[in-house]
């Protein structure tokens, strides 16, 4: 008697559920399943240097279909593919925010994806020498979302952040920012007694 067969027989007499695992382990099937026997059509021949013909008749994975749509229609198709499948780690509501945030095609072309934008902003912010700020701003002149950094140190190079962002921050570094600070100071408030 094959090992495991006695246990399966006892279990069957007792009315218990069948033990598939031990039977499958001890007695491997001698036949192949219908799915694995299915033959794929041969791939069409192509010459070297020419574009590879499409593999028709073959089931494509979700990642492969998304990559194809990315090649055909640009990175904007990736977002909708992410929303309809589970291959992306971002939740659905963050993708909606992403589409709002990167609404213009120019911004999409600049960053590529939400993760790329975060990586770029993180890298720029970490690379700030000394203390400072990392900014995500909207440049009205170019109508695009831009990344900028601002080292808050006297004598540092001029700010590379958008002009509107410099105007909006109370304390910023660089020559341009300091000149704006002087022009926006309220000298009347300084002269009045506390």
């Amino acid at each position: 008697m094959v090992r495991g067969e006695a246990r399966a027989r006892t279990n069957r007499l007792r009315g218990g559920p069948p033990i598939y695992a031990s039977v499958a382990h001890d007695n491997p099937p001698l036949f192949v399943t219908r799915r694995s026997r299915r033959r794929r059509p041969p791939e069409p021949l192509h010459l070297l240097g020419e574009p590879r013909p499409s593999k028709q008749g073959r089931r494509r994975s979700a990642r492969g279909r998304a990559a194809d749509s990315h090649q055909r229609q640009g990175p904007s198709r990736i977002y909708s593919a992410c929303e309809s499948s589970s291959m992306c780690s971002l939740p659905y509501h963050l993708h909606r925010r992403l589409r709002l945030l990167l609404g213009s095609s120019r911004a999409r072309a600049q960053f590529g994806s939400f993760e790329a934008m975060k990586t770029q902003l993180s890298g720029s912010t970490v690379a700030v020498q000394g203390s400072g700020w990392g900014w995500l701003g909207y440049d009205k002149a170019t109508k695009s979302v831009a990344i900028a950094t601002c080292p808050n140190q006297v004598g540092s190079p001029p700010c590379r952040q958008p002009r509107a962002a410099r105007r909006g921050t109370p304390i910023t570094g660089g020559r341009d920012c300091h000149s704006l600070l002087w022009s926006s100071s309220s000298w009347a408030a300084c002269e009045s007694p506390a």
Partner: protein
Amino acid sequence: MPLFGIDVWEHAYYLDYRNVRPDYVKAIWGLANWSDVAARLAAAKK
């Protein structure tokens, strides 16, 4: 128009992250309120 800012002055992160600034910046993304950022962007576009 500023939409989202990350403060990398030492007083912002030194107590919790010491001098490991990348960990602080990485943790920022879990706290970001993208609803506010999207609202600021919509206001800036007008």
